[in-house]
């Protein structure tokens, strides 16, 4: 059949194009909806090495250039830290006293002790290369004990803020889905008024979140600037981690619940170091 080879030769471009598109569609169908296959993990492992190297080189350069300025800043910070240490020593004495009192009250009420978890520190090495997905890549993977769905936190402005959860783990790196992602949902609670709700990433982007399903009763009790924390429901995130502060409140007349706009505690543009919480190993 001499027709087929000449047809292939004539339409080489179009045939290769069609073959690639079919392959892409098949791959998407197999790897979509969190059914992530091993090739994706293997690829992530390989290419994150390149990211790690570029991150290390850029760190070395910026570290060298800014070290003198850093030294000056550190000196003034040392003086501040000394002052703060004195203050903390006083607070620490108060806390020890309060802890003793708390333990005694808990014993009386029969409440179990709070569990403390193992924290795995990690450094942010890369972000998503495109603007359509909002992920963060960290330099810890399966070999460091990371597993999927582990909560990730960061310390900023003296508060422990929720960053997100681990969604993809390869050998030496992991991808974290931040709470600002529109597909991230966190069971939350207002710290002072104690109303529950669900925090999701906002389509508006940046560091804004939306807390929905808050009872309308809360309209008179919720304060602007009130802290939103994890409620511990759903068991994915431990209770009491700070999520953000209430910035706006919307009460639609036809709706049964309130919608709150929450500003994340964590400034994601300044995120450098994070801690992954191992909830299974205290």
């Amino acid at each position: 059949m001499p027709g087929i080879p000449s047809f292939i030769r004539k339409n080489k471009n179009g045939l290769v194009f069609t073959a690639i598109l079919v392959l892409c569609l098949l791959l998407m169908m197999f790897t979509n909806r969190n059914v992530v296959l091993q090739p994706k993990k293997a690829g992530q492992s390989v290419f994150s090495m390149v990211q790690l190297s570029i991150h290390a080189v850029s760190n070395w350069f910026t570290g060298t250039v800014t070290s003198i300025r850093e030294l000056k800043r550190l000196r003034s910070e040392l003086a501040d830290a000394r002052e703060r240490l004195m203050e903390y020593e006083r607070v620490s004495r108060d806390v020890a006293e309060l802890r003793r009192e708390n333990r005694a009250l808990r014993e009386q009420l029969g409440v179990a002790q709070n569990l403390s978890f193992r924290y795995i520190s990690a450094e942010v090495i890369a972000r998503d290369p495109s603007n359509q997905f909002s992920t963060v890549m960290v330099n810890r993977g399966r070999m460091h004990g990371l597993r999927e769905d582990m909560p990730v936190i960061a310390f900023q402005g003296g508060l422990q803020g929720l960053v997100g959860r681990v969604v993809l783990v390869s050998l030496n790196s992991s991808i974290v889905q931040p709470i600002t992602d529109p597909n991230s949902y966190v069971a939350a609670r207002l710290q002072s008024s104690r109303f529950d709700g669900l925090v999701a990433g906002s389509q508006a982007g940046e560091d804004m979140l939306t807390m929905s399903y808050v009872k309308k009763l809360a309209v008179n009790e919720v304060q602007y600037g009130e802290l939103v924390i994890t409620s511990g429901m759903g068991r994915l995130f431990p209770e009491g981690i700070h999520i953000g502060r209430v910035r706006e409140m919307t009460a639609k007349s036809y709706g049964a619940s309130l919608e709150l706009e929450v500003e994340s505690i964590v400034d994601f543009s300044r995120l450098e170091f994070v801690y992954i919480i191992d909830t299974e190993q205290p």
Partner: protein
Amino acid sequence: MSRDQKAFLMSSGMIALAVVLQSTLLRWVAIRGVIPDLALIILVFVSIRRGSMNGQLSGFVTGVIEDFLSLSPLGFHAFIRTVVGFLYGLTAGNLFVDPVLMPVLLTVIATLFKALISSLLVAVLSIPAQGFSAFAGPLWIELGYNAVLAPFLFALLGLLKTLKPQDKEWP
């Protein structure tokens, strides 16, 4: 190694490097968290210079690398970049590219086209992506960023001999 194969390797290498830079160093110059798509600008340049075969193959290979580094399903970026590379490649040899206007115009169209395809894929395959929802803010920032950078990148890439316009068919 033929000139076409050299051009393919060089263009794929450059686009792959751009993808890695987008995920690391370019975060420092992000505007409201949005980074420029250098990989797309290079792909447009390569495709209109070297034709559909080079464009689609480079687009596919680098799209797969982007998928490895992203939370996107495998094939998502590969699909978008293959389509862009193929379609722009069809215009190879038929366009007069001036130093400023055409690079801007071609890049703006490619960015809008990328947004359209990705929105379609997100909708049809229910991909959990932030996407360019309703062509909102981030898309316009990326569009502006790409448009500003395009003439400079086109001028730089134009200096590379390997990427000179195609003179024979892909072997």
